[in-house]
């Protein structure tokens, strides 16, 4: 692999052994995957910052890496709790201490602790930008909707890239690789397109059918709502290694497809049966047995949160149920400015939570076992990681149920 003078100096330890170690790992990775050189990145987004997922091992590694600073704009994924409401949530102090140490280490490194899985909603990323992003839903969104260029980085490789401002030039950083490998048609009509759970179920099913490569979705009537398309991406990211899809009339990379690129590609279709299968796979909790109704995987946008609040803020939530709404901190700041009283809502059983994601929270310690959600990604990981009982239900039905319950 070609390295320029500056990169050689980093590798030789002129900028400290941490940066040398980071560069060495990236070079090793790049050489194995056929990169000819490193390229500069303008942004990095790192995953794996929750004490639940990385534990003592990850913390130790961060303590070492935090001797150096990142050299590009870097944001990070959600942590294990809301920094304001951790005690109210029931997070043990021992856990709090560990998670705060991780966050402090990230801050020391110069990472912007956005603690959100939707960096594409807040960060200034444009078409053609080379970036190094982890978090599967964000990678898919950046490549497929924004037209930025990133491989599906691991949390660790994104952090190493942030430390040296570079990533190996291979895979989705090369225009010639951003071409379809399979053609997909979604044969579903007459359903609500503004429904997160359906979008997440279609994505989940697509990921099961197409594990890797770049699917080209040719009839995208169902994927017209750009605000909700993140649920589709999150579903895909859960069941596959896909880092990019091309959606007809939406993805910027579609214009680079030549007719000859499509020759000989397999065609598959997704139908209603596939979607129903996903709902059937996550169907264990009825409303009277559930502890938490969870909306916000990926994090809710301001408009989504306002819509949900308009619907339920006057509802008397039964004592045994809590509604968890996760979003980013800047959205919470905005709704506070709009006059919503977060503590008052909390007393009603509506928990507006930022900085966190239940998937990476110490859920067992919070005594949450039975969850209804509108996200197939959340359903999958809550079951896998926390042995929670889960039901995937449409947001529409969840809100209706809540209204009728009182």
């Amino acid at each position: 692999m070609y390295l320029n003078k500056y990169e050689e100096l980093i590798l030789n330890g002129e900028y400290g052994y941490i940066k040398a170690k980071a560069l060495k790992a990236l070079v090793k990775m790049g050489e194995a995957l056929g990169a000819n050189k490193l390229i500069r990145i303008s942004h990095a987004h790192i995953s794996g910052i929750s004490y639940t997922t990385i534990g003592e091992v990850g913390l130790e590694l961060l303590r070492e890496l935090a001797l150096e600073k990142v050299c590009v704009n870097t944001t990070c994924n959600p942590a294990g709790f809301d920094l304001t409401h951790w005690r109210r949530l029931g997070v043990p102090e021992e856990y709090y201490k560990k998670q705060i140490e991780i966050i402090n280490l990230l801050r020391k490194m110069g990472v912007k602790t956005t603690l959100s899985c939707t960096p594409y909603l807040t960060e200034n990323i444009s078409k053609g930008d080379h970036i190094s992003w982890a978090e599967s839903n964000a990678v898919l969104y950046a490549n497929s909707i924004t037209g930025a260029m990133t491989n599906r980085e691991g949390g660790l490789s994104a952090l190493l890239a942030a430390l040296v401002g570079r990533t190996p030039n291979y895979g989705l950083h090369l225009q010639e690789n951003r071409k379809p490998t399979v053609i997909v048609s979604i044969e579903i009509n007459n359903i609500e397109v503004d429904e997160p759970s359906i979008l997440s179920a279609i994505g989940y099913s697509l990921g099961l059918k197409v594990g890797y490569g770049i699917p080209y979705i040719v009839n995208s009537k169902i994927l017209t709502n750009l605000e909700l398309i993140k649920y589709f991406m999150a579903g895909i990211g859960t069941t596959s290694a896909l880092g990019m899809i091309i959606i007809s009339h939406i993805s910027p990379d579609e214009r680079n497809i030549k007719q000859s690129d499509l020759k000989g590609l397999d065609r598959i279709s997704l139908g209603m049966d596939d979607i129903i299968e996903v709902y059937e796979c996550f169907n264990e909790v009825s409303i009277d047995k559930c502890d938490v109704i969870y909306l916000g995987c990926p994090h809710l946008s301001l408009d989504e949160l306002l819509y949900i609040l308009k619907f339920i803020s006057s509802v008397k939530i039964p004592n045994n149920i809590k509604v968890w709404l996760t979003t980013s901190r800047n959205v919470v700041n905005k709704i506070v400015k709009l006059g919503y009283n977060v503590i008052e809502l909390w007393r009603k059983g509506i928990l507006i939570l930022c900085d966190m994601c239940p998937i990476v929270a110490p859920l067992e310690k919070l005594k949450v076992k039975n969850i209804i959600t509108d996200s197939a990604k959340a359903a999958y990981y809550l079951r896998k990681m926390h042995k929670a009982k889960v039901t995937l239900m449409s947001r529409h039905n969840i809100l209706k149920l809540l209204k009728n319950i009182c």
Partner: protein
Amino acid sequence: MYLTFRCKPIVEGYAEGEALVLNRPISFLGEVDPKTGVLRVDSVEEKIKDKILVFPHGKGSTVGSYVIYGLKRYNNKPKAIINLVADPVIVIGCVFAEIPLVICNSKELFRLAHSGDYIVVDTYRGIVILYKECII
């Protein structure tokens, strides 16, 4: 009898041992516990320590690289990993955990290999050798 397959070395090393084969992708986060080294996928529940782990590719969470690194720190790492397609999440995990990793794009290997087979991974020669118990 044995069959030899060409492979692309990703993380170097030589390893031989008993294969643990899955014919579906793995999400290390959620499906592998680094502290116990147990892999839980559908009905499969197996310790991966010292196995030659064979599966098509990674899927899901990008935190998987930390889980793979954790396997090393908790002394539960597999002897080697064989994938059909390279997934950066697994690659960087293996680089840090020093687990030999190869990409073998022969679907034949994935069709023929079964858990319990004996497999050699040799990145220096760029080969995987599959010993079939039934035909030895």
